[in-house]
């Protein structure tokens, strides 16, 4: 009890404060460039620097030279160093989804001391066949059985993508379209469509009290969801993206649910009382605004920069929906590299919904990308939370370095905390949940970063476990 009080009073607010301070963390760094260029340094000759004459591109058949040139910050007359060329190579590599590889070399320029840079481009095909796997915060692991992506060539071209997904608790199809399909500044439009059959998990007492007593059991209920989003978008500085549009979704829950362990089916009338009223076939229509600012140096292994997103939803009956409710979510993460692939990272995420929010749009916390050390969604009562916050800090250290690449094996120490609440109930520190632990991430060719986290609860949970082992794709944040 004392342990929980100390944690709730001191550690959780500290995490919150740290994450808040992190909102204003530094802009995009040059993590890749630093390691690869420092040893060779500048091409200085008795104090005189080499200057850029021009850049020429070869090997680009689909992508225009204008597009590639537009990605470069390096301009004629600029000082040419190994670091500047490494940065320029990354700029071109990121500039277009069809750029698969860039090789850089130089030639003497027109005048003494001037350099011509040659960039040899290797392109991808426009049609990309995809496969893969993923993790949904609520519906767990899934496999992307087959996916197809049609990639843009010109900045005005569209990008579309479709995929069939199968998972433990999720099966379905989704597709999205965006124009322009590239990371260009300016305005555009997009659409997203999905049809899923999902298995919703919740914890509650047994419908047969004489058998289960007061123990919290895991139950599953099938839900069909189909939805469509249409939006306008605006991109700025390649790092910031705003979208505003319409969203419509139809949710059709099964009339029965089952015990996850025994598989025994129960009628809807046996649902916990708090859920019985909330679960029904419903249609949601409304407006959605989202802002994302991403200044991370590398998405898969960030060591500098930050990620922040803000999402607002206003749902109304005016567009044919059954519900009137609003929803706001905020997520921010910061990354502070401390050298040689070591980093200290933090996160703050929070969300709140208004009254009238349908059951399946409520919040459920606990698990690998929420509060580690607790079973997935286990920290939320059956009826769902109306609001939540999560905060965490993580220290990442290379265990098996891999030269200038990210480490082959990374170790991490973490502390997570969070809290969910129900409208109308007093918000007290006694409901804050926290956990600490350690984890590993293995970098595998083509499969990316996979690993496990072992979390030890520092406060009471629903399932009374001493520790919890989670599988993870990438880092938790």
């Amino acid at each position, binding site marked *: 009890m004392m342990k929980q009080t100390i944690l709730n009073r001191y550690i959780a607010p500290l995490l919150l404060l740290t994450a808040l301070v992190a909102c204003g963390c530094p802009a995009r760094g040059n993590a890749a460039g630093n390691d690869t260029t420092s040893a060779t340094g500048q091409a200085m000759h008795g104090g005189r620097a080499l200057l850029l004459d021009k850049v020429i591109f070869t090997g680009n058949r689909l992508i225009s030279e204008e597009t590639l040139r537009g990605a470069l910050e390096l301009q004629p007359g600029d000082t040419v160093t190994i670091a500047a060329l490494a940065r320029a190579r990354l700029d071109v590599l990121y500039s277009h989804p069809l750029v698969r590889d860039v090789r850089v070399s130089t030639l003497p320029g027109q005048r003494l001391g001037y350099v011509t840079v040659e960039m040899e481009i290797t392109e991808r095909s426009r049609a990309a066949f995809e496969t893969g*796997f993923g993790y949904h915060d609520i519906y767990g692991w899934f496999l992307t059985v087959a996916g197809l992506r049609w990639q843009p060539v010109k900045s005005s071209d569209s990008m579309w993508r479709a995929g069939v997904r199968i998972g433990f608790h999720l099966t379905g199809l989704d597709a999205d379209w965006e124009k322009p399909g590239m990371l260009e500044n300016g305005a555009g439009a997009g659409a997203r469509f999905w049809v899923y059959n999902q298995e919703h998990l919740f914890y509650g007492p047994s419908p047969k009290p004489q058998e289960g007593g007061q123990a919290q059991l895991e139950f599953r209920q099938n839900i069909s969801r189909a939805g469509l989003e249409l939006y306008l978008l605006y991109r700025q500085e390649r790092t910031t993206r705003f979208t505003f549009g319409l969203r419509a979704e139809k949710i059709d829950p099964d009339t029965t649910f089952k015990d996850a362990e025994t598989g025994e089916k129960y009628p809807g009338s046996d649902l916990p009382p708090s859920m019985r009223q909330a679960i029904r076939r419903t249609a949601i229509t409304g407006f959605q605004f989202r802002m994302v600012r991403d200044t991370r140096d590398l998405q898969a292994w960030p060591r500098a920069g930050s990620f922040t997103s803000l999402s607002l939803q206003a749902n109304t009956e005016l567009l044919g929906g059954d519900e009137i409710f609003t929803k706001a979510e905020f997520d921010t993460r910061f990354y502070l590299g401390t050298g040689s692939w070591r980093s200290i990272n933090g996160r703050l995420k929070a969300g709140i919904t208004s009254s009238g929010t349908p059951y399946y749009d409520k919040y459920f916390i606990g698990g690998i990308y929420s509060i580690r050390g607790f079973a997935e969604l286990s920290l939320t009562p059956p009826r769902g939370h109306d609001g939540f916050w999560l905060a965490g800090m993580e220290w990442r250290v290379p265990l098996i370095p891999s030269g200038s*690449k990210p480490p082959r094996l990374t170790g991490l120490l973490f502390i997570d905390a969070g809290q969910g609440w129900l409208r109308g109930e007093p918000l007290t520190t006694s409901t804050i949940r926290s956990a600490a632990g350690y984890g590993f991430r293995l970098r595998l060719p083509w499969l990316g970063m996979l690993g496990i986290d072992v979390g030890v609860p520092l406060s009471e949970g629903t399932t009374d476990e001493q520790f919890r082992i989670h599988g993870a794709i990438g880092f938790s944040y």
Partner: protein
Amino acid sequence: MTVVGTGLILAALPASARAPSSERPVIRDARIYTDGSILFCDLTSSGMLSDRITGTVKSGLPAVVELFYHLKTKGRGISVEGIHSWSLRYDVWEDIYSVSDGDTTVTIESIEAMDNMISRLKGISLIPFSRLTGGKRFMVKFSIAVNPLSGSEGEQVEGWIEESAGVRQESSWREQVLNVNDLISNLFSKSRDAASRSEWFEIESAAPEQVERIPGRND
């Protein structure tokens, strides 16, 4: 299924067909010897300075020669892998070429002399000769690469980015996307590293006592 498989391969092949041009050096000869304390090698190669490398050096930016070696004894014994590297530079104002191994820098008058020097690398230390005791036969193999601007290590971060470009993340889910085209084209084409490196040149198995002894030869 066969049709789908063939379609995937055909879709991927254009990407591999557009792979960067390959200008690989060739190791012509290698000789190992010892002064009694260190195992050395001399290496003769050709095709070291391609047009791309020559252009880079003449522009005033460096190129890097990397020699990769792998020595192992027969059965359960030692296995040593290592890299030696040399930086090739040109001072465009002073019109002086130089080759540096990090410790010592040798200045040269022309690019032809530079080519000649790096095509005949001499006195490269491999391992302390005492590690080869016990009479176990051993083999050594070499591969050499010349890259503009920085060594093969320098491009690995970017190579890793390509490899991992398929991470897709939304607020409530994340997905590792595997690009089947890239996977197939990688199977049908050499990696960037392999494309710039020579084939391995292997010295046949020899016993330590058979190694040529040249007293005082380590320059």
